[in-house]
């Protein structure tokens, strides 16, 4: 059964000229529609490429900030654990919620995505392949990735950034709907 499912998926992806990265624990249903998945991924990317997501997925060791994605002021750096340098931690300024007095944003686990999850400079397909690669995404299968994208407190902060920061182009429920649509239809990725 599993073999058949994977065979069908490979036929579909080959037919549409797309790349599907399937999790072994998330077989693609027979009703999966790669075109739907591909379209949903395009919608997802409008959010993932917004400053609220990209600022903390740099390919170097320096967070970005602001809607213009400038390098974080004060030489702020990733550090060994992605939460800052020994005496210049993220929580020197950022707490677990936005601060209305200072305007400093905050959320639980504030910090950079690991270097293995760098998105800056990647194509849409490249970002998707990084997200789906369990050796790079913290061991998440597809269901866990969907949960991360739709429920993680730091991800959800993107829709509550405070201080007049720009919101992602889709509202959170719509984004979550597209994430599930993308995953349920095979987690299809563009080649580029």
């Amino acid at each position, binding site marked *: 059964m599993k073999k058949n499912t994977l065979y069908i998926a490979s036929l579909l992806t080959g037919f549409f000229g797309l790349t599907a990265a399937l999790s072994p624990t998330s077989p693609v249903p027979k009703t999966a529609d790669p075109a739907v998945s591909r379209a949903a991924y395009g919608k997802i990317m409008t959010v993932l490429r917004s400053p609220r997501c990209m600022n903390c997925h740099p390919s170097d060791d320096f967070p970005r900030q602001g809607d213009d994605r400038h390098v974080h002021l004060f030489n702020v750096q990733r550090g060994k654990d992605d939460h800052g340098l020994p*005496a210049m931690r993220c929580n020197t300024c950022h*707490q677990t919620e936005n601060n209305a007095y200072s305007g400093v944003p905050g959320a639980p686990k504030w910090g950079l995505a690991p270097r293995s999850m760098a998105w800056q400079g990647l194509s849409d397909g490249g970002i998707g392949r990084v997200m789906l690669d369990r050796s790079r995404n913290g061991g998440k299968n597809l269901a866990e990735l969907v949960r991360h994208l739709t429920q993680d407190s730091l991800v959800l902060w993107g829709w509550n950034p405070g201080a007049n920061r720009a919101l992602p182009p889709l509202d959170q429920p719509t984004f979550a709907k597209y994430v599930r649509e993308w995953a349920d239809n095979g987690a299809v990725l563009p080649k580029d």
Partner: protein
Amino acid sequence: MEIHFELNGAAQTVEAPEQTPLLWIIRDYLGLKGTKFGCGTAMCGACTVHVGDDPVRSCSFAVKFAEGKKITTIEGLAQGDALHPVQQAWIEEVVPQCGYCQPGFMMSAAALLKHIPQPTDEDINNNVANICRCGTYFRIRKAIHRAAALAGQTAPHKI
């Protein structure tokens, strides 16, 4: 909201709105004026205190997060009548000019030495991001190296 924490070794209980910046609790509720208001946006570092072993910008730290924590301000850096090596070094190197930002710098420097006892210039540049409008950075760096040397020696320095 009632909040309990330890300030410079003494237990404190304050009744305040939970979002009140810790800076104003320290200065206006508890009367310790060494911690300064600078920018109010966690950028300049004049309001730096320690929460546990870590430096924190108290202007951007809601007092509710202080619950159960150990807070140290510039007034609590010395141990009794023994100056902290950073304080001693600041005196020896005549660091302050106008002095307004210096308590924050000293708290950042003390936190740095807790984590990196013998910092390089690069460590100092990377971990101490406070701002001094008088431009005393050269003397600050020199004093941090001096403090590291003093801390590596024997007993704390008497006042």
